[in-house]
């Protein structure tokens, strides 16, 4: 494992919202081909962490380094979300953010935007290059829909899909941007147990077949334990533990963080 390259390295990441310190001094790293889970109670700062990494927020402090499998390293701080995506990192959203009145296929096709070139003139004249590119985009998007099992809904509007399918569509759309690192924000939220199992298999397949590294936020502990190689735990914006699922599961601080929360709920 240790021989593998580090794909994403986050150092001393802090994020303040006015007086609220949503993240403080968080370190994270993901190795090539790993599935890493980021867990923690509600409001721990997991989504904020994603938003900082993907350029939606500009972190108050810290460094974010992305290294492509070809070995090119880039500091992501201050880049715009689309530039980050172009570098090879794609994400999904916790509160599903599809393009509701576009079709399922179009949603995925949009993901290819940063990998394609045709411009206004090409669109108007529809020359050979543009047409070829369009066919490639359609085929690729269709393949991705097959991968996530939505190939029967190609022409449906995204908003008409059931919840679980919308989550899978988000994954397909993210994959269309040709990433080497995929960030999934609670992909199993709102899914039933069968759907969750299918999702686990999908995530494994994406890692194995597409040679992807995956960072995953998830509340479903069964899923976290069964698919992740390593787990990072956040609480109140601080990292309290890191290790294999078994190590983290036995960590007294983690147990306290979760049980403490349950005790409050009860």
């Amino acid at each position, binding site marked *: 494992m240790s021989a593998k390259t580090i794909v994403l390295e986050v150092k001393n990441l802090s994020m303040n919202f006015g007086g609220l310190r949503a993240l403080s001094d968080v370190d994270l790293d993901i190795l090539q081909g790993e599935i890493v889970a980021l867990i923690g109670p509600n409001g721990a700062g997991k989504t904020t962490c994603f938003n900082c990494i993907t350029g939606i927020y500009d972190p108050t402090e810290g460094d974010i380094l992305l290294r492509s499998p070809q070995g090119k390293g880039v500091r992501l701080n201050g880049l715009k*979300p*689309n530039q980050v995506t172009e570098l090879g990192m794609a994400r999904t959203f916790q509160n599903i953010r*599809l393009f509701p009145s576009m079709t399922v296929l179009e949603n995925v096709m949009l993901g290819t935007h*940063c990998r394609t070139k045709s411009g*206004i003139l090409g669109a*108007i004249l529809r020359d050979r290059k543009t047409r070829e590119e369009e066919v490639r985009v*359609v085929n690729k998007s269709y393949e991705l829909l097959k991968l996530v099992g939505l190939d029967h809904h190609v022409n449906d509007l995204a908003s008409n899909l059931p919840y679980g399918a919308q989550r899978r569509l988000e994954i397909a*759309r993210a994959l*269309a*941007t040709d990433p080497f690192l995929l960030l999934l924000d609670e992909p199993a939220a709102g899914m039933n147990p069968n759907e969750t199992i299918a999702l686990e298999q999908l995530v494994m397949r994406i890692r194995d077949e597409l040679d992807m590294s995956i960072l995953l936020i998830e509340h479903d502990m069964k899923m976290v334990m069964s698919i992740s190689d390593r787990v990072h735990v956040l609480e109140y914006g601080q990292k309290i533990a890191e290790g294999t699922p078994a190590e983290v599961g036995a960590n007294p601080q983690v147990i306290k963080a979760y049980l403490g929360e349950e005790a409050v709920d009860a």
Partner: protein
Amino acid sequence: MEGFKKSLLACIWFMFLTFPLVVIRVDTAEKTVQWRWMHMLWVGLGAFLLSYVWRFMLKRKAMGRSATNPDGTPVVPFLQRLSANPPLARSIMAVIAIGALVFPWLFSTYQTNIMISAMIYIVLGLGLNIVVGLSGQLVLGYAAFYAAGAYSYALLNHHFGLGFWTALPLGAGAAALCGIILGIPVLRLRGDYLAIVTLGFGEIVRLVLENWNEFSMGPSGVSGISRPGLFSVELSVDGATTYIYYLMIGLVALTIFVINRLKNSRIGRAWLALREDEIACVAMGVDRMKTKLTAFALGATWAGMAGVVFAAKTTFINPASFTFMESAMILAIVVLGGMGSILGVSLAALLILLLPEYLRAFSEYRMLLFGATMVLFMVFRPQGLVSSERQRYEFKETKESQG
């Protein structure tokens, strides 16, 4: 029964409210008071019927929604049936095309002029449709771009004697430049804020044109603009009108062609995505600045071309033609027609321009009818005359069989 009671209530309420106005009439000359009970009856009947119909329509709308969903076979709208039947659609298109082509030979110059205006509004509507309908940027100062085109031609013609055909691309370019100039500072704005800033921009452009006498000749405007010439042949007024008519047909066809292609292209999808969810769109790798600016620039380009034709048609322009009312009217065309729908916007442009022309009797109530129509549409058909989603659905199917 419930509806009946409510309508009855509404009717009584209305009779009560209008009682002093419509029933009592004090004749100050003869010092008598007239009680016009018949009027009250009419008001009551009218209010009752209107309220009843309104309720019925609302109910039907609610029912229609729930009735189509479970059985899965919704009533197929006429347009969808049309697009599922290409030969029929093609023959209808052919009839419309032939009708449009022979129009100036069958009708008077006056009618032809009205049609030219209507077509200018189709182009304006379709242009604004790029910005508002496709990329979802609510722009309220669109008339500024229209003015940019018109004034480009007017001033270039006045000072340098430039001809129509040279001015057309220049006017389009000037408007596109205006689009970019407006686009850059408002990149970060959205929704209401954008609407207000663009409204301000439109007003600023108009005020500059009105007050900068050395540049734009102020409120009196530019007159004596040349009509487009046909290979340096001077045309008569009638001839020029016919010529501009055909020119506009060409421009409308070009606009529809271009927008139709853009709509289903890489850029068009980026526009739609930007409209639907800006954060997701940017996170999927779309450059927000480039995408917005292309939408602004392209939208403005069409306004610029329409402006050049407008100046050539009227041979006289002044800032009064480019007020906020103009922007609002074009926006109304886009909203009534259906955001993003080419056919809908074209139909709405024709309706809004032609109805007032042919219903001169109602001209006093024009704004009233306009408002009422808008309200009715927002309640019963918020997606506009023609919703664009269905068409995309059809397109995808043919596309998929190709790919």
